[in-house]
């Protein structure tokens, strides 16, 4: 349902993949994957909020970049957010030009009935930030799992907005 069938129930969620494994799966050809941490300033945060059309609960973001030699293979952002009561961790992978390549659930601590399927996550493939990238527009709501579908859609929009605000911006400075 969640929407929510057995509701909160016991926290029968699970961790499926470590970040390290998921990054390696996302970029099997990469010879190096680097983590860059960004702290958004107020202007960047409000720009990100406006682009993503969703709330922002943190200003610190890590963007992983994968390279093979000099070639940039893509970006990956780990997004952790609360679904209903418990959290999920998603790895959102972007192509070098900022389209969604894949969305993967690394951990889902809500009951597993509400976990988005691979097929549904596939709806995000190739998407860019736009007015149709919303639930009940181009993205179907998962039957019985409104909150799960909402949280993934927001996470993807946030990552795509992050691409525009910091990744694509040559002026943005990473902490490391």
């Amino acid at each position, binding site marked *: 349902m969640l929407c929510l069938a057995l509701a909160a129930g016991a926290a029968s969620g*699970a*961790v499926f993949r470590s970040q390290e494994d998921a990054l390696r799966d996302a970029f099997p050809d990469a010879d190096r994957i680097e983590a860059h941490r960004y702290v958004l300033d107020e202007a960047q945060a409000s720009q990100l909020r406006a682009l993503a059309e969703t709330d922002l609960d943190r200003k610190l973001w890590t963007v992983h970049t994968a390279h093979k030699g000099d070639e940039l293979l893509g970006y990956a952002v780990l997004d952790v957010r609360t679904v209903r009561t418990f959290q999920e961790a998603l790895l959102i992978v972007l192509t070098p030009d900022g389209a969604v390549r894949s969305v993967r659930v690394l951990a889902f601590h809500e009951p597993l009935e509400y976990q988005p399927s691979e097929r549904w996550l596939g709806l995000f493939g190739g998407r860019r930030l736009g007015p149709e990238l919303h639930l009940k527009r181009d993205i*179907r709501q998962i039957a019985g799992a409104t909150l799960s579908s909402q949280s993934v859609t927001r996470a993807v929009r946030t990552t795509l907005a992050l691409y525009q605000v910091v990744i694509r911006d040559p002026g943005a400075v990473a902490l490391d």
Partner: protein
Amino acid sequence: MDEVEKLRAQVAAPEEATALESKYGLGPAASKIYSIGRGVSIGGYVEGRYAFRDLGDSPDDNQVDLHREVLYVGYKFNDWITWNSEIEFEHASTEQNGSVTVEFSALDFFFTPAFNARLGVLLVPMGFTNEVHEPPFYYSTFRPEVERLILPSTWSEYGGGFFGRIGESLSYRVYLVGGLNAQGYESSGIREGRQGASEALANDLAVVARLEWEPLEGLSLGTSYYNGGAGQDQSLDIGGTEFDMPRAETTIFELHSSYRWQGLTARALFAKTHIADAGELSTLFTAAGNEQPVIARRQWGAYGEIAYDVIPLLFAGSEMSLEPFFRFEYLDTQSHVPRGFVADRMWKQRIYVPGIQFKPIPNVVLKLDYRNVDDFAGEAGDQIDFGFGLVF
């Protein structure tokens, strides 16, 4: 600050693979899941309503009711054994018209995604509403009548069985549960035959199975089947003489489908019940002076429902929803009464429910609907319902 970011990510998904090991197929379920430190979980839902019935040809008393206040409590022992329960307070007070019920209390054993086991008080897996009955997740203040009179939700029985998901699109449940008690059967249906694991008679058991298939994203097709005796080896005292109850084998077959596309949600359900020995039951219940003694051999009902969320058209990305909806129901619990008995036409009904529901956030709902009940005896009245619901 860097550490805060790392910690945040670490809580939800471990950074390194070393601590992960695959257990019982739950993906490589990690022992680090314990690090989330949540053995106990609590959730719940509440629904209240105002029913305005002083209208139409059959006016009745208006009513306010805190219909349900429910607590979910669960405990996760480890990554393959969990306990889930739902404790329901109905109608606000046991000193007035209320009750307290354990709606379910299930011990789950997770083996593989395709094969898991469950034991305890289980929700009978039929239809849409019985398992998913939280107020934000069905339309109208009152649940569909077909899922009250033909599928008697909320329906739970003690039992055990298996459940799982095969691939991405197929899921199943198969349970063996305590049977219904035919002594509770009425002209209005089998609803009062539910035993709810309360020192329930278990001389007759029942099998219930459900299959759900999602061939496309957004489209779901499902069916369920129930079969079991309901006589429970009981006898009925009529004028000082004991009469044996027949086995009253009860079979319920149900089909349902839902479809979502953009703001559209459509659902349809068909359910049909067959009761063996209906003639004998009706004869006994008539002799015993029961208020609703005619038990139909065949009972059925169906409904179709359509809703459209207009908010995405106006404010994309908003978490609010505003959904006008319409449901049409048809049910007949006296569809085929035994020879020599007259069907009570009050239980043949057409129900029209136009309404609207607003969710400021997905967990909170306000509902306004009009329920037009057109029974073939011309006795039922219409009503306007205003309800609220929440889930957390």
